[in-house]
């Protein structure tokens, strides 16, 4: 994990190619962030060490490894063992949201549909709060 004080690098795991494109636009063009997109949890696990993200952004429901299982495996890697994580999900039940928030290092849950114009701001806020509390 980077030790810099400004959020820059996002590892984003999402299987829906259309949502990938909107999020990339939202985070890179609107938010000025550097984003690596992975289409599966397995791909993210393979890419995480080299990319060394400041923040993990994970879809919840994906084929193969889902978001929580992906995070669990990313926690086994030194590069992402303590990297703050945010889930993006269309799940709406409070119980489901609460369960995600209990996962180690989770600093936020963002509901889909999301607003591309404010997505980067939401990530910055959650990431900054996690830095203050750590």
């Amino acid at each position, binding site marked *: 994990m980077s030790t810099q004080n400004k959020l820059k690098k996002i590892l984003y795991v999402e*299987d*829906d190619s259309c*949502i990938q*494109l909107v999020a990339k*636009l939202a985070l890179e063009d609107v938010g000025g962030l550097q984003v690596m997109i992975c289409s599966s949890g397995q791909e993210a696990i393979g890419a995480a060490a080299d990319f060394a993200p400041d923040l993990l952004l994970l879809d919840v*429901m*994906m084929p193969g490894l889902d978001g929580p299982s992906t995070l669990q495996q990313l926690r086994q890697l030194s590069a992402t063992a303590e990297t703050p994580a945010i889930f993006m*999900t269309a799940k709406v039940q409070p119980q489901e949201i609460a369960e995600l928030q209990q996962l180690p290092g989770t600093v936020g849950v963002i509901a889909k*549909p999301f*607003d591309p114009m404010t997505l980067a701001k939401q990530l910055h806020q959650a990431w900054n709060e996690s830095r203050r509390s750590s």
Partner: protein
Amino acid sequence: MDNTLSAELQQRLAELQAIFHAQLPGRINDINNAWQALSREWSAEQLNKLQRMSHSLAGSGGTFGCHQIGQAARNLEQSLKALAAQNNPPPDSEIRQRLQSLIDTLVVTAAQWNPQQPPIINSEGSGA
């Protein structure tokens, strides 16, 4: 954000919306096919697949400016989820009819969607 950048972003979002719109019939077809397969042979795996597909559309429909599609997909997902929570028993005819109705609604809603506006409204975050 200045107006030029905003206009450029709106244009790019509109292009992404057009991509989503073009892919929508294929996604609806995939859901229909998954439902047909599940109807022929009920299985937890196929139920999970259909639930995942409807979940995905529930999230992306709203993001691309069609909340009706998102809601129709969410209704389907919630019903499938309730079934899955009962350890996937093959449903009776009443439940099958209800699922068929939810899928029919999703199909019609998707077919009727004609995106006229870019999905995102302004920099105040009132869109999507």
